[in-house]
């Protein structure tokens, strides 16, 4: 069943929220894709059921189980971002999207594994295998295409980043992974704060942006590297037991806490900002980004392959992109996310 079908069955009292929650918690416990289970889920299911029984209208997705990539905060559940450096990290507050999910009566089942500070193939796999009806992730286009599920990388700024561990601050966007376009749209409408617009017209041919990928690499590695600096073994980040002084605390904690891919990105990003490189590379990357954004102003919609070269366009320009089960993505104008999902479903 899709998420909307589950919601309809709950609304029609064909199934209880508790039954559905139990069913998906069991699946999650048995799955290697989950890193943590929400132990409050059954209690929350009972509360939602009580509200529904009292005649409250919560949302079109009330009572439906949902999972979160492990870079989104749920108070009381650890958040590790797939990294040893955040292994013991307990968030101090709920992410804004989690507050919205709870207000809408969705039940958070648990957290999904992820590549260290990156995407979550596990989220796409879990949705594809119906271990969860749908999930919230950050840009997960490659994994969604590989697993043949729907995914919206939303317009930048449409969904709050409060309670999301920052990776690339100027591109990070929380969006849904689901088994139908309608589920994606329904979930996005619950978590977003946006004035959606309709698609102005049909598909457009895109000009070539030869430097886009390089610009995207420079900016995303620089931002990610800077964002990860705070995990230094002092107040954040698992402190190395081997460190004898301040310098060693930084060196050993970070050397032991980060994986190789993360280190490579952080080092490359740091290099791009060092000394004259800011003017030589980073500033040029910002210029490429600005020119690209301007060039994409008039574009309504374009179908593109899912790969680094094409993914970076929506990332840099902050535009929405929807990945379809056929492995293609459609990039649209800003705030046409819902229209894209409807168009994709048609």
């Amino acid at each position: 069943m899709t998420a909307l079908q589950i919601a309809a069955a709950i609304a029609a009292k064909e199934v209880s929220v508790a039954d559905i929650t139990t069913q998906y918690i069991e699946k999650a416990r048995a799955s290697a894709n989950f890193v943590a289970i929400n132990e409050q889920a059954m209690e929350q299911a009972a509360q939602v059921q009580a509200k529904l029984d009292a005649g409250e209208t919560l949302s079109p997705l009330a009572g439906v189980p949902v999972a979160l990539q492990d870079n989104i905060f749920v108070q009381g559940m650890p958040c590790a971002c797939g990294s040893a450096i955040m292994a013991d990290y307990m968030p101090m507050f709920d992410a804004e999207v989690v507050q919205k999910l709870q207000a809408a009566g969705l039940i958070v089942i648990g957290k999904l594994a992820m590549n260290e500070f990156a995407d979550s193939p596990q989220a796409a796999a879990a949705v594809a295998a119906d271990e969860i009806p749908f999930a919230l992730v950050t840009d997960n286009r490659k994994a969604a295409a590989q697993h043949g599920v729907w995914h919206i990388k939303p317009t930048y700024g449409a969904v709050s980043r409060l309670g999301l561990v920052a990776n690339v601050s100027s591109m990070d966007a929380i969006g849904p992974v689901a088994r139908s376009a309608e589920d994606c749209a329904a979930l996005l409408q619950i978590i977003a704060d946006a004035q959606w617009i309709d698609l102005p017209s049909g598909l457009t041919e895109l000009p070539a942006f030869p430097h886009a990928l390089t610009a995207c690499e420079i900016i995303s590695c620089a931002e990610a590297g800077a964002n990860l600096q705070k995990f230094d073994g002092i107040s954040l980040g698992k402190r190395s037991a081997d460190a004898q002084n301040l310098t060693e605390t930084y060196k050993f904690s970070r050397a032991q806490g980060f994986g190789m891919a993360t280190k490579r990105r952080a080092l490359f990003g740091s290099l791009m900002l060092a000394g004259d490189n800011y003017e030589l590379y980073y500033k040029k990357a910002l210029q490429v980004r600005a020119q690209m954004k301007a060039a994409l102003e008039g574009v309504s919609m374009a179908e593109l392959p899912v790969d680094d070269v094409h993914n970076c366009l929506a990332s840099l320009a902050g535009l929405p992109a929807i990945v379809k089960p056929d492995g293609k993505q459609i990039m649209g104008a800003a705030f046409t996310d819902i229209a894209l999902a409807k168009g994709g479903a048609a």
Partner: protein
Amino acid sequence: MSWEIVMGLEVHAELSTKSKIFCGCSTEFGAPPNTHVCPGCAGEPGTLPVLNRAVVEYAMRLGLTLGCDITRVNTFDRKNYFYPDLSKAWQTTQLYAPVCRNGGIGDVRLHQIHMEEDAGKLVHAPDGSAAYMDYNRGGTPLLEIVTKPDFRTTEQVLGFLETLRETLLYLDICDCKMQEGSLRCDVNLSVRPVGQAEFGTRTEMKNLNSFKAIARAIEYESKRHIDVIERGGSITQETRRWDDNKGKSMPMRNKENAQDYRYFPCPDIPPVVIDDAWLESVRATLPELAAQKRERYTGEYGIAPKDAATITVHKTISALFEQLVELTGQPKEAANLITGELMRHLNNTGTLPEDLQVDAGKLAQLIELVLQGKINRAAYKQTMHAVFGEDVQPMEYIEAHGLLMQDNSDALAAAIAAAIAANPKAIADYRAGNEKTFGFIMGQVMKELKGQGNPALVKPALEAALADC
């Protein structure tokens, strides 16, 4: 060879906004460690900065007052470095678009003024065994005021800082307590032979905690430069820490000197646009500054320039003065009260002007009492100090201490009669035309009244009595 010293300043002013620059935490000084901290200013992941617009307004106030060009599209940048006082491992500052450019104070030109956040404080255990972090100060808003290298003498530096301090105080944007670190100054210094156009190699001195320390540090560092160069050496461009106890500057650990801050635009803070309406609304509420007040006090009230300077030494004092003038309509009495008894009180008790707490209404009441002749000057001063010290109710105090002047006519008549009877020689002298004796007789009457006679009443009554007898 004779040498010229060239200096520029970097002044950090901690702003007195109620909350921090990017979160709602209080900026209050002296709270128990880590009590004014939230996930945001603790640098927790998942948090986002929300700019406190009051900080931008404070920057505009200073910029408009100092004749700066105000940047209309303000952006913030990240300055990256690892140090425990910086929980995020970056400081949010303005590198590429500082809020103010140009402007100046007198002959000194400003390079720029920018907004940034302060770091936390590292507290070392007395035995050196551990260090603790206090993040209360982290995220407190700062304005960094950077001058051009326009200073040639210590006097210029101190004069500039005094005017800047006065301006910040009167704009009500910084409490300027150097001892609490709310006003901090770094001095960039180099020397060159008189007549040479190029600048010498400069050093930057940090940790200057008082005007006195600044003066000593400049003297020490300029001598050191000249000494090194005259002995054939060369100055290394570096940051040095002033040690006021040793009276020496020392190079800071190499880390501070070889630092690459890898600045880049902060992706979390959208540009802040200052439009005409906002700018003009700030301009319209700029307060009167100390120099303008001095001009008004001397011009409008006829107060001596020296006294006007004393009254404007701090905003709390000039505010008290203006309240007293408003309540009594007696600017000269008010000025005398402040430059005389109030200053004596501050000196005697070691109270800083900013810590002064006094009820202007009570002082105004005292001014009225003395002018109406209800108390004499001695009682006026005595009661005033009781108001300063214990915040007494003036009338209660005056009555309890028997300071109210006698204007009981029976008692006065009796006192005059007694004085005349007791001093026949003086009366005879007076009658013989020696008018100077009047003062003596007057004194005797006052003595009879135990000092509580009202001279304004005693004098005519005594004159009449002497004419009659």
